[in-house]
């Protein structure tokens, strides 16, 4: 069943992506009012459910935020009535298509993966968790549907509807295991996303009051002074959804959920909704203080997230910090808002979604086999689980190595930043070197072989392997064919909005391709089987013990060789970093809202 739906999603996404865009969907027989009423009812039901959750958990903030949201939406209804006149409720352009493609391909892959993963999850790894897999998969698909709706929506109320559905799905999925920790983190995610939802609702109301319109495109193309406050509030909502400072903690806490959830919601798609919104709004806020504040939030998150990722040996936490950091970069691009920045931002979205998803899925598989999420336990994985280790290396290379995607994106971001706000480059400059540190550290851990390992019998199940191989291939192809991606999807969009677009340039593209080919040659070197090389022991002061990785210690004892990565504990402290992040982020957002109101 799942496979069937997934296949449909795949075919649909690709078919849609190959259509010319932007498309005008105004003639669709949507029966607007009926849909509008239907949405109202669903929203009401969702609101009631959330209130119930808030009351049951005695979480005052949830109740308050939900009531606030309800009040604002009621206010909107009274203002707009049923005379809502967005000519087009749905809007399809290249950017939407890219997002839909990501959602479809990546999301579909994750659903396939989840089949195999959840089977093992419930039968072996976590037998104590109640098996609610039908609900799990249903939520996954509802979520994917909501994402499709989100990226195609032009009517802000529709967008808001889908936005809230994603919030609810996230809450339910994080709390899937129903442990106290999961419940706590789910509630935290709910609170923060509700806060974003509240500002979203306020934004719609203010926008409508000023312009009597509910269209996103209208907002983007209006005069800046008119729409600055709604735009700022929408950016606020985007920041909460994308877990930027000061709201990063919900994403970090969401890692308790099963891996498909982490991959789908919290790296590839849902959090992308937040940055999608900000990038969409980029023309509306570019050049203003609001934009600058958004950029600062993004840049600060990038720096703090990257530094924090160095300090932790837990694999999913590293991935979560890295996600937050990369989203920070995209938010930075959105805040700057020039054509170059937007081009860079979309490129980042694409590459990050694919590579990070691959990494999450691999980590999930590894966690099942090793029963540990600790990077230090992954030593020698290249022998123990070679296929998965190679795919992880591909993912990590995609995240940090030139000439692969993320590096191109970072190159683009740097150029965009230097032209617009050179002082922001300090974030990128320090942050990107921090990212290098933790990725290469991890890569090294996978590759090192301290003690002989026997290959595990069955690495991954069929479903998981389809998803993983497919994603690796997509990562690889995306990197190889990114000029095509850029010219087909990104440049048309950027040119459409700004009148000009950035691009890599022929010379640089050739250089990138050459470099990629050089790096691709690397696996071929393994064919030489070490001709002319003689294997000897590593140097341990001559005290090697024959046939084992140990050495003779004092008193004739045999000591083991252990090697653990640096986590820079004396220099970087995770708690302090998060405190700084929260304080800084809150301050920046406060300034942003203030300037928007004035």
């Amino acid at each position, binding site marked *: 069943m799942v496979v069937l739906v997934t296949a449909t999603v795949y075919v649909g996404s690709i078919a849609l992506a190959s259509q010319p865009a932007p498309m005008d969907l105004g003639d669709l027989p949507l029966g607007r009012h009926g849909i509008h009423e239907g949405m109202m009812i669903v929203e009401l039901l969702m609101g009631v459910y959330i209130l119930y959750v808030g009351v049951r958990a005695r979480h005052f903030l949830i109740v308050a935020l939900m009531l606030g949201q309800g009040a604002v939406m009621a206010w909107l209804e009274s203002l707009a009535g049923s005379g809502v006149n967005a000519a087009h409720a749905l809007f399809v352009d290249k950017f939407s298509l890219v997002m839909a493609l990501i959602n479809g391909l990546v999301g579909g892959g994750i659903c396939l993966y989840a089949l195999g993963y959840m089977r093992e999850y419930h039968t072996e790894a976590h037998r104590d968790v109640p098996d609610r897999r039908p609900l799990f998969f249903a939520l996954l698909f509802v979520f994917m549907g909501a994402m499709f709706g989100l990226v195609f929506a032009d009517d802000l109320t529709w967008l808001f509807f889908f936005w809230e559905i994603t919030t609810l799905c996230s809450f339910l999925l994080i709390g899937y295991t129903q442990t106290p920790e999961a419940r706590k983190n789910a509630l935290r995610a709910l609170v923060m996303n509700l806060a974003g939802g509240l500002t979203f609702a306020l934004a719609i109301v203010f926008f409508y009051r000023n312009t009597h319109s509910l269209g996103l495109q209208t907002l983007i193309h209006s005069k800046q002074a008119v729409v600055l406050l709604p735009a700022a509030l929408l950016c606020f909502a985007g920041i909460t959804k994308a877990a930027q400072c000061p709201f990063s903690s919900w994403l970090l806490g969401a890692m308790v959920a099963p891996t498909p959830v982490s991959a789908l919601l919290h790296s590839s798609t849902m959090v992308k909704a937040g940055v999608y919104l900000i990038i969409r709004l980029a023309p509306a806020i570019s050049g203003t203080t609001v934009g600058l504040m958004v950029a600062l939030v993004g840049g600060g998150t990038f720096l703090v997230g990257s530094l924090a990722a160095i300090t932790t040996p837990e694999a999913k936490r590293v991935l979560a910090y890295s996600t937050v950091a990369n989203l920070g970069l995209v938010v930075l691009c959105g805040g700057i808002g020039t054509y170059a920045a937007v081009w860079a931002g979309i490129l980042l979205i694409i590459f990050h979604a694919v590579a990070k998803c691959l990494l999450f899925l691999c980590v999930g598989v590894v966690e099942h086999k090793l029963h540990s999420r600790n990077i230090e336990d992954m030593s020698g994985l290249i022998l123990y689980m070679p296929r998965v280790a190679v795919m992880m290396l591909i993912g990590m290379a995609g995240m940090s190595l030139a000439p692969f995607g993320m590096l191109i994106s970072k190159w683009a971001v740097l150029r965009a930043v230097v032209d617009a706000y050179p002082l922001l480059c300090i974030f990128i400059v320090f942050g990107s070197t921090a990212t290098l540190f933790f990725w290469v550290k991890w890569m090294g851990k996978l590759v090192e072989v301290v003690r002989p390992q026997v290959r595990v019998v069955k690495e991954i199940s069929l479903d998981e392997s389809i998803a993983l191989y497919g994603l690796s291939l997509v990562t690889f192809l995306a990197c190889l064919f990114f000029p095509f991606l850029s010219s087909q999807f990104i440049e048309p969009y950027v040119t459409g909005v700004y009148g000009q677009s950035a691009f890599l340039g022929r010379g640089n593209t050739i250089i990138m391709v050459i470099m990629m080919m050089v790096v691709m040659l690397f696996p071929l070197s393994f064919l030489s089987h070490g001709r002319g090389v*003689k294997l*000897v*022991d590593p*140097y341990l*002061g*001559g*005290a*090697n013990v024959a046939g084992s990785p140990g050495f*003779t210690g004092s008193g004739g004892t045999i000591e083991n060789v252990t090697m653990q990565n640096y986590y820079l504990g004396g220099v970087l402290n995770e708690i302090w970093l998060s405190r700084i992040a929260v304080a800084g982020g809150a301050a920046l957002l406060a300034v942003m809202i203030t300037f928007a109101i004035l």
Partner: protein
Amino acid sequence: MRGLKQSPWILHYDASSCNGCDIETLACLTPIYDVERLGVLNTGNPKHADIFLVTGAVNEQSKAVIQNLYRQLPEPKVVVAVGACAASGGIFRECYNISGGVDIVVPVDVYVPGCAARPEAIIDGVVKGLAVMEEKQTILASARGSIDKITYSRARLADAGFIHALRKAAGQAEAVLYGDDSFPVLDESLQDLQNEFEQKVFLKAVINGKIIGSIAGHWDGHTVNVDGLAVHPYFQNTGVSGRLLMEIEQAFQGMKQIETRVGNKNEPLQKELLELGYQNFKTEVFTPKITWIYLRKERT
């Protein structure tokens, strides 16, 4: 090819030295002697080194370490034993913990005498070692693909010095085993050995340009007397002795009887000889600790 002599990188290891020779070795790096002008670099890493400089006598703990480090030096490599202790055990030779000089563990190429050896002597030894290394490189290069392979061939008079040192080293190792120094091979002089070259057929086993095994055979009219079987302790139990015995048989085609003798504690060699078709025919007590066992092989 230029380069090998110009860039000797040293691994300095202190076996159980009193540190006198070590201080003299390190003094070579100081401005007064400055070996770096010869390109010498003291790397602490066997994989980077060409010359294995060992000071001090060898005790039980050092044996395994020296063997391990020797294995980690890339070919062509040279071992220089610095000081009297490294050469033969020096003044500590009779101590309960000392087994002997470095050559009972690894084949040594250059001995630098002195106690402590002077920096000038050490530098001189290193330079001599470079010449040896160049020779090894030539041998290795001329027989391509022969790295780490043992080759067997006829020894010439020029090899007498190396064979002499080898026999002494093997003899010393054996003496340690028996606790008795009376082996005749230990009293043999180089001149004696060179004289024997005229009457006997000498075979050598060579690896990476270094002689690590030797055997001699002598036809006295009705039997072939095989003696002087010496394999360096580092390469023992690798089948070299068996191969040498087979080669010496080949060298004396058509001869019907071959005889040899072996010490009573040398069980592996006895077993090997029995497998090759030798039979025990006489036993002779040499000293209270050493008994010779004579074996003979008849060929048809």
